[in-house]
């Protein structure tokens, strides 16, 4: 029995829903109707809209890259939207957050505007980090980065958790996103050891998209599922969740945060997901079979959420198309803003190396 067949027992599952059930691994179980009731129609539509905004921003960002407007590396979050959207929906934006180079979505969810993100991609003065950071280094008042050495962000997030405990800040946790590839790094293990040893309110989220660049997870990581195995090594709880399902992610993060706040113990989450693009824009992804990619894209988190909302009479196809176009227009306006923005003054090049 899968959670979805219980939650949807009054309706025969569609083919898409069947795909969304996922593979024969034990995902976190939750009550879909409870999540829907808890969030309500307006909030659910707002979260779907955020996922569409992320999707549109990535599509237009990649197009700008192909047009030579964006340089460096470009790592798209397309396919993984449900995870961070579900997380911020469940936890709110007043915790500490840290993530990888694949950071556009989390910056958006934590309040960075499409304008400032697109301007940063374009390397403009009006950018999120004044053109200093670029695609891999976005920040907000609550986002510690956008840090682009694999695994290097995990000790930073652990430090934010330490800071919360040191300052006795109630109701706060430190969320740390990492790819499954980072699990092979010492920084990850040192952090989990410290967080468990010192009872830190840290929530480590392995976004397992099954590929560390072109290396399949089972060729890089000795255990599977990752979180279930490694959490035991550090005396932590773990949750394994279907990362393509917004509702599952929402419920899992809600529970994880409650547990962490109650126990002041860290937790390890593994969100099973798929990126629909290569590792970065320069990666055609030829290591992945067409069947696998097609299968992955049939579990599109946006399509899945849309289907559920339509089934629950909260959304029509027409309204969805309209919502998508509105997000596209916001992003196109951001592209125009970035185009029109001034370059950073080269006179300012050496400013900001040191804090005042």
């Amino acid at each position, binding site marked *: 029995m899968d959670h979805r067949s219980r939650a949807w027992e009054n309706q025969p599952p569609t083919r898409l829903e069947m795909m969304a059930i996922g593979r024969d691994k034990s995902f976190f179980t939750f009550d879909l109707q409870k999540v829907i009731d808890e969030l309500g129609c307006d909030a659910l539509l707002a979260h779907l809209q955020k996922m569409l905004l992320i999707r549109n921003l990535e599509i237009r960002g990649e197009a700008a890259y192909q047009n030579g407007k964006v340089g460096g590396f470009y790592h798209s979050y397309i396919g993984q939207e449900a995870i961070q959207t579900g997380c911020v929906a469940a936890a709110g934006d007043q915790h500490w957050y840290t993530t990888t180079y694949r950071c556009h979505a989390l910056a958006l969810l934590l309040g960075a505007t499409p304008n400032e993100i697109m301007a940063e991609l374009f390397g403009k003065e009006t950018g*999120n980090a004044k053109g200093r950071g670029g695609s891999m280094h976005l*920040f907000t008042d609550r986002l510690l980065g956008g840090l682009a050495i694999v695994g290097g962000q995990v*000790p*930073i997030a652990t430090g*934010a958790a330490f800071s919360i405990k040191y300052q006795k800040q109630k109701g706060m946790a*430190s969320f740390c996103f990492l790819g499954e590839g980072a699990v092979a790094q010492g920084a990850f293990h040192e*952090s989990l050891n410290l967080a468990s040893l010192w009872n830190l309110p840290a929530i480590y989220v392995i976004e397992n998209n099954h590929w560390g660049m072109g290396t399949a997870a089972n060729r890089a990581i000795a255990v599977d599922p990752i979180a279930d195995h490694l959490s035991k090594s550090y005396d932590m709880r773990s949750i394994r969740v279907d990362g393509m399902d917004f509702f599952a992610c929402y419920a899992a993060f809600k529970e994880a945060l409650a547990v962490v706040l109650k126990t002041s113990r860290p937790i390890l989450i593994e969100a099973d997901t798929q990126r629909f693009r290569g590792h970065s824009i320069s990666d055609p992804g030829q290591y992945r079979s067409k069947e696998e990619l097609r299968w992955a894209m049939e579990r599109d988190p946006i399509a899945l959420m849309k289907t559920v909302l339509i089934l629950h009479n909260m959304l029509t196809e027409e309204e969805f198309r309209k919502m998508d176009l509105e997000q596209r227009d916001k992003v196109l306006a951001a592209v125009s803003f970035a185009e029109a923005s001034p370059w950073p003054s080269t006179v300012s090049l050496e400013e900001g190396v040191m804090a005042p």
Partner: protein
Amino acid sequence: MGLQTVEIREALRQALDEEMARDERVFLIGEEVGEYNGAYKVSKGLLDKWGPMRVLDTPISENGFTGLAIGAAMTGLRPVVEYMSWNFSFVAADQLISNACKMHYMSGGRFNVPIVLRGCNGSAAQVSCQHSHCVEAIYGNLPGWVIVSPSNAYDAKGLLKAAIRFNNPVLFLENELDYGDKMDIPQDEYIVEIGKGKVIKEGRDATIVSYSRMLKSCVAAAREMEKNGYSIEIIDLRTVKPVDIALIAASIRKTHRCLLVEEGHRFAGICAEIGFQIMEHCFDDLDVPLERVCQRETPMPYSKVLEQETIPNPERITAALKRLFN
């Protein structure tokens, strides 16, 4: 103002204690800093006084606890990280290089990293190839932090207090062999400004620029030269980066000769950098080419005979001074 006679380790301990009293965001983290009272007893008694939330014994996990401290610094705290030796910082190089020194710039000014990373630098007594590194040239190549290297108890205390109040990362380099050096320092609170060198001995005929433990050998060499009637000025940099080039230039305008001495290696070392800055600022004031004495291009050998030969010693420094007058 009353004086007290203290060792460098006590001067450092007083700086930590005073700053922890002054600012509750300041905490000390590292291996053996708490229950063991510090591998070199710099943190003696601090755990008893401030408790385990402010004096944290870590596992042997430099990359983890350095990153943790950087994250804590980004989120409102002011950590002091003790490396039992700077050699162990290499395990944490990613956190130092990728995060600590560029976070402010990379985030468009959003996040500061007010952190002090301290411990003993350079060679000790025959600790061989892996425990004798001078890190200032390695880390000094990167913008975004300050490197401080005091040579005595007065500067050690005043500079550590300034470093803890500084809003950027400070690499604070101490010396295992010098922790017991005694000096009279004020009983009252004082600060030594970061970025300012000091003339520790005035002279007319040549300038020696050095810092930290090498100054003892420089003073010995200068005395040797004085027997032959040469008057040697000695500058203690105190802060290695940014270097106080104005002080150096002013001295060279007086002496017209300059020798640079560092414990670390020759290639791309601190002397190489300062020598170039001297050329940029006061080339015309030099009567003769610069000289330098550095660690020879070998890993640190174990045997004390070899160790003494690769580290700058008074004999090599005296020989270099003599070359300035040939």
